[in-house]
């Protein structure tokens, strides 16, 4: 075939492929959802979050959520999710965000687990004037490096996890002398360890760090690191390991009695504690990045969300699921508040943004207050506890809750400065 015709046909096909889809019903709210659907972060975070979005949206659309979320959809408008995989480089994610905003024409976006993506997407959301709600990523840098009108985060930052861990260690080991760290060598691990070190030094000025192991992300084999930790003099080991690495570490450490000889603090251990119940000895410190999962309060929202999730997906929701659920509920609360102020008519995005700022709402994890970063960043209380096997079931005991102001920096203060000032309120 004549190559020029081939070329024309190919170009036509490409143009058709890139053409925007037909506009959908005016009444619906198109909600972009971005989470990892492939790769190592899919199992522990992305898929549980996507599942939570599915079930919450379905229940909310059918008016089955408890008060004050009982109205169908967002103020009567049906929620139509558009789900995107968070995989690939930041370039790919920025491209897909732009496509979500300008090709699929979503009304708003809830998503992002990777801090790198959150950092890259925030200015783009601002440029495209697209309301974007981060639900999981941990870096405090989002609102500490810049201010945004269109960007919100409905979960607390990772600083809370480290400070909470340090406070909990203080209650467990009042005479602490040496700590060690085992964190993945990338921004999340480095920041978590950095924050924990700074916090523990405030609480125990003479504490020493005997070793800080920083294996490559997804290394999978931790034999040498475990030996190094065993031979160190540390009493407490801090780790922010997650996903497959977390589970591989527990599986490899269990027969070598590392967790019995030292107290390990798993700041994000909640995702693994049920599956690996037999490998984790009693007394191991577990966190869930906030009051989620095992630490969730017994309120009506949790009584609605957790069984519905478990019925549909077979496993209880983990903290990524809780964070996604509260993001959707938070937006719904703000949307309906804006709609009421707008005389019952569908609010403009600017009105929703105004309502989201400083909003306070309650979800399955408890109270969420958009209190810092000029009302764009949420704070919540956090909880830590110790594992205990009761009749073969994994439970948490000795749970301590720390109020939001104790574990989150005040408005306008950078996390690092706040910790180093001795947690000045």
């Amino acid at each position, binding site marked *: 075939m004549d190559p*020029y015709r081939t070329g024309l046909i190919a170009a036509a096909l490409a143009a058709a492929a890139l053409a925007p889809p037909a506009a959908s019903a005016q009444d619906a709210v198109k909600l972009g959802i971005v989470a990892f*659907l*492939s790769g190592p972060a899919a199992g522990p975070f992305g898929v549980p979050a996507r599942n939570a979005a599915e079930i919450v949206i379905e229940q909310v659309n059918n008016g089955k959520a408890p008060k004050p979320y009982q109205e169908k959809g967002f103020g009567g408008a049906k929620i139509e999710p558009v789900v*995107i*995989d968070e995989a690939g*480089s930041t370039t790919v994610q920025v491209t897909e965000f732009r496509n979500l*905003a*300008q090709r699929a024409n979503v009304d708003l976006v809830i998503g992002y687990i990777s801090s790198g993506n959150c950092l890259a997407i925030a*200015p783009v959301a601002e440029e495209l004037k697209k309301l974007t709600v981060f639900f999981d990523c941990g870096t405090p840098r989002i609102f500490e*490096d810049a201010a945004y009108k269109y960007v919100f985060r409905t979960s607390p930052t990772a600083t809370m996890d480290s400070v909470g861990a340090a406070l909990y260690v203080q209650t467990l080991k009042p005479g602490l002398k040496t700590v060690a760290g085992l964190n993945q060598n990338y921004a999340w691990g480095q920041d978590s360890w950095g924050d924990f070190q700074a916090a523990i030094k405030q609480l125990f000025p003479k504490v020493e760090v005997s070793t800080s192991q920083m294996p490559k992300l997804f290394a999978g084999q931790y034999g040498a690191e475990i030996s190094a930790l065993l031979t160190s003099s540390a009493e407490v080991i801090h780790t922010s390991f997650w996903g497959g690495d977390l589970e591989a570490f527990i599986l490899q450490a269990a027969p070598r009695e590392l967790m019995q000889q030292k107290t390990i603090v798993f700041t994000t251990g909640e995702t693994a504690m049920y599956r690996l119940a037999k490998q984790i000895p009693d007394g191991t410190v577990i966190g869930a990045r906030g009051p989620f999962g095992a630490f969730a309060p017994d309120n009506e929202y949790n009584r609605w969300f957790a069984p519905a999730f478990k019925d549909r997906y077979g496993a209880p929701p983990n903290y990524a699921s809780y964070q996604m659920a509260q993001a959707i509920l938070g937006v719904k609360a703000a949307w309906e508040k804006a709609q009421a102020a707008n005389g019952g008519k569908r609010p403009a995005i600017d009105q929703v943004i105004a309502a989201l700022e400083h909003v306070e709402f309650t979800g399955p994890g408890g109270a969420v207050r958009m209190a810092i970063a000029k009302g764009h960043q949420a704070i919540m209380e956090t909880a830590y506890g110790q594992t205990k096997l009761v009749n073969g079931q994994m439970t948490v005991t000795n749970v301590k809750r720390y109020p939001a102001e104790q574990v989150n920096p005040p408005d306008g203060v950078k996390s690092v400065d706040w910790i180093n000032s001795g947690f000045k309120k």
Partner: protein
Amino acid sequence: MSRDRTVPILVAALAAAAALGPLLPDWMLFLLTIALSKGLVILGLVLCLRAGLVSFGQALYFCIGGYAGGALGRFWHVSDVLLVMLAGMTAAGLAALALGFLMAKYRGIFFGLLSLALSMILYGLLVKTEAFGSTDGFNVLPFTLFGIRPAEAWVRYVLLVVVCTVVAVAAIAVNRFLATPLGQLAPAIKDNEIRVEYMGASARYAIHVNYVVAGALAGLGGAFVAAAVGHIDPEMAYWTTSGEFIFVTILGGTGSVIAPFLGAIMFYAVQSFAFDLSPNTWQMVLGTALLLVIVFLPNGLWSVFTRRQRA
């Protein structure tokens, strides 16, 4: 390589893109900008591939270009896109000059794997540098052109026009280079290096020159991608980025200086298409597409346009 129609075709296509730009949606302008910028990297890879050298670490220079541009903005508050582009190109070119002394000694798979090792070492260094944000990277300053920041609605268009212009200049320059004796040595080196030496030409010198040009082009591409995306992170140096570049190189073919850009546009369009239509299986779609191209179009997509010229 067909020299007769390459330049006019390329310039015409780019001029058309620039002219149509205001009519196209923003997301398409963005996609084109990214594709053309990465096309520059691939143009460099094509140069090396002609000499029989496959670099599995071209991401090294891509990353250096991006970080040089980003650092210029972050530490010296320079946001002019032309300066950023020059910085990226120069930094990467200098790095290629220095490393070329080592790399030009290697051939075949060892060239590829040493380049891979070097790019992964840069990755490691960047991950450890908390001043650069480690794996989270940092956002680059919004770009300006001759001191002016374009209005919000024109940002994507202005950047696309700049990229189109630079791509046209680069492609024409490379085309000219390929017509010179030094440029024509590459296929000879691939065929039989010893005979090239017997002819009196220095294979090492030719390879070094190709390597520096490829590095500079990659740095240029990296600086543009950084300006377009607004964010840089160490993943720009990771081996999967290099893999993507090689993927597109083979996809486009090595038949012409236009091939890299055609291949890049097709690849990023298909990737975006795959993400949209099958968020759960986009990798499979991409892999299948590549397989089909390799099996049915062994000389890349460009061969579709050159079949006619075979007598």
